[in-house]
């Protein structure tokens, strides 16, 4: 412990990118996600604070770009009132896509009956699914009356921070139950690419990053018993079947845990018995349960104060 890891995104050619991977391994950093598209590669990684300049040097040599990615290791639920064409693919998909730029993993959730004013409601299952994430972004429409008076009932039972997007420019205090409100992203039937729309998406990213920063500061006061990134690495080493999973991000990092995209019945025992060098098993450090998403495994890591030690 004591090593501060900073999130970065490397974007460059596939050629010789393993030099970065090798150096990162030597330095004790972690690769969160590697996305290869044709001849391009995106590496989302956690780099030890004092060694960032070493990675930067290699990245410059390879003519790649190294960017800070403040939302790395954050899983965000982008919640749309329904899956109908009124709300999707614009603007909810644009919101989700834009949040991925700074490194977040986003999941789109369409509520079954979230539309309308009086009739809008969410199901217990949906609330539980949203609560598995680090943060929820609700994409609402263009009417301030709906956003202020009617839609906040959808936040009942949501325990994670709530970010709301909508058309009108409102203050966060006006939307009860929201931790952040971002205007200028209402209901649209076209892709968000005009100047002011992209500006609104950028302010959403800035606001979400700030919110995540606050959660991280809170977390620093009572840290987790083990870093999620370390659990990820151990899973990759000890459960080789994870390499056969085709989902993007077979292991998705969260601020306080991970989602492992392996079937629960067949693998939960092996995840629970994951052993660390210190001789500790994962089941001592974390709660492992069946995820509401498909049949995945959800790991929520306990706090140091609960376990009594951290590794």
């Amino acid at each position: 412990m004591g090593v501060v890891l900073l999130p970065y995104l490397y974007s460059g050619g596939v050629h010789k990118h393993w030099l970065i991977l090798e150096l990162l391994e030597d330095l004790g950093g972690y690769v969160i996600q590697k996305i290869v598209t044709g001849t391009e590669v995106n590496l989302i990684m956690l780099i030890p604070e004092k060694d960032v300049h070493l990675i930067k040097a290699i990245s410059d040599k390879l003519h790649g770009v190294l960017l800070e990615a403040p939302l790395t290791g954050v899983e965000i639920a982008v919640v749309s009132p329904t899956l109908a064409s009124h709300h999707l693919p614009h603007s909810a998909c644009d919101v989700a896509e834009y949040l991925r730029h700074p490194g977040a993993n986003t999941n789109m959730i369409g509520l079954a009956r979230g539309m309308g004013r009086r009739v809008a409601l969410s199901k217990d299952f949906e609330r539980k699914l949203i609560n598995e994430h680090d943060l929820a972004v609700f994409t609402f429409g263009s009417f301030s009356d709906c956003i202020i008076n009617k839609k906040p009932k959808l936040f009942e039972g949501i325990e994670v921070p709530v970010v709301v997007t909508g058309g009108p420019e409102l203050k966060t205090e006006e939307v009860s139950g929201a931790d952040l409100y971002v205007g200028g992203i209402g209901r649209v039937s076209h892709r968000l690419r005009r100047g002011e729309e992209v500006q609104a998406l950028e302010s959403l990213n800035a606001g979400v990053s700030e919110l995540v920063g606050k959660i991280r500061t809170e977390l620093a006061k009572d840290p987790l018993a083990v870093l999620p990134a370390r659990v990820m690495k151990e899973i990759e080493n000890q459960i080789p079947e994870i390499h056969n999973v085709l989902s993007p991000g077979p292991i998705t990092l969260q601020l306080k845990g991970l989602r492992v995209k392996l079937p629960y019945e067949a693998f939960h025992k092996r995840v629970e018995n994951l052993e660390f060098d210190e001789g500790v098993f994962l089941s001592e450090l974390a709660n492992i349960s069946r995820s509401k998403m498909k049949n995945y495994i959800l790991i929520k890591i306990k706090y140091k104060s609960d376990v009594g030690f951290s590794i």
Partner: protein
Amino acid sequence: MDALETFIVEAAIPSEAGFYKKILEDNISSLKLAPAIGRLKVILRPEDSLFQMALLLRDIGSALTTADIAKVEAKVATEKEVRISIKKEQYLPELLRLLWKRYGKANIKQPDRWTVAVVVENPLKVAPFIENLVVADPRHTLHENLVDFAIRVTPEGFRVRYHLFKGQKFVFVASEDALKKEWIEEAGKMLEALERTKGGV
């Protein structure tokens, strides 16, 4: 009446009317309705969960036959076939679909982009029939598109709907509560007002 010569969106908060105008514009363009709509007025009252729309259509073309989009000839000298030389390519998929259904895919040849040949026993008899075949009916597709348009632009939760489509007139009222009689009457008055307006706004 020019295309979209009147296009009004009213709401208590002007900026929200602006958002909605954009949604309407996007849907008009994605359903290619712009040439068909003459005057359009929408009133939004989110506080009452109410959406009212009245629109007047422009003159829409009548049904198109094969003769309107192509030249049809009966060839008997060399091969027994009806040769169709396409003039308006945009209706070709509809025409092909009709011909395939009637004469079978095996009997339809397309030697090039502008020619369709139908192999038949007695081309002289079949050619006039094909000439008078109704290929596309803009009124029918317009009706479909208009209903689709109304549903797409209405806020999704407003599932209680009233619509009237008569000739060139279209009225649509939607809410999430039971519709009040006066709401429908208001929409009817919107339409009457639209009929009186001449251009502008």
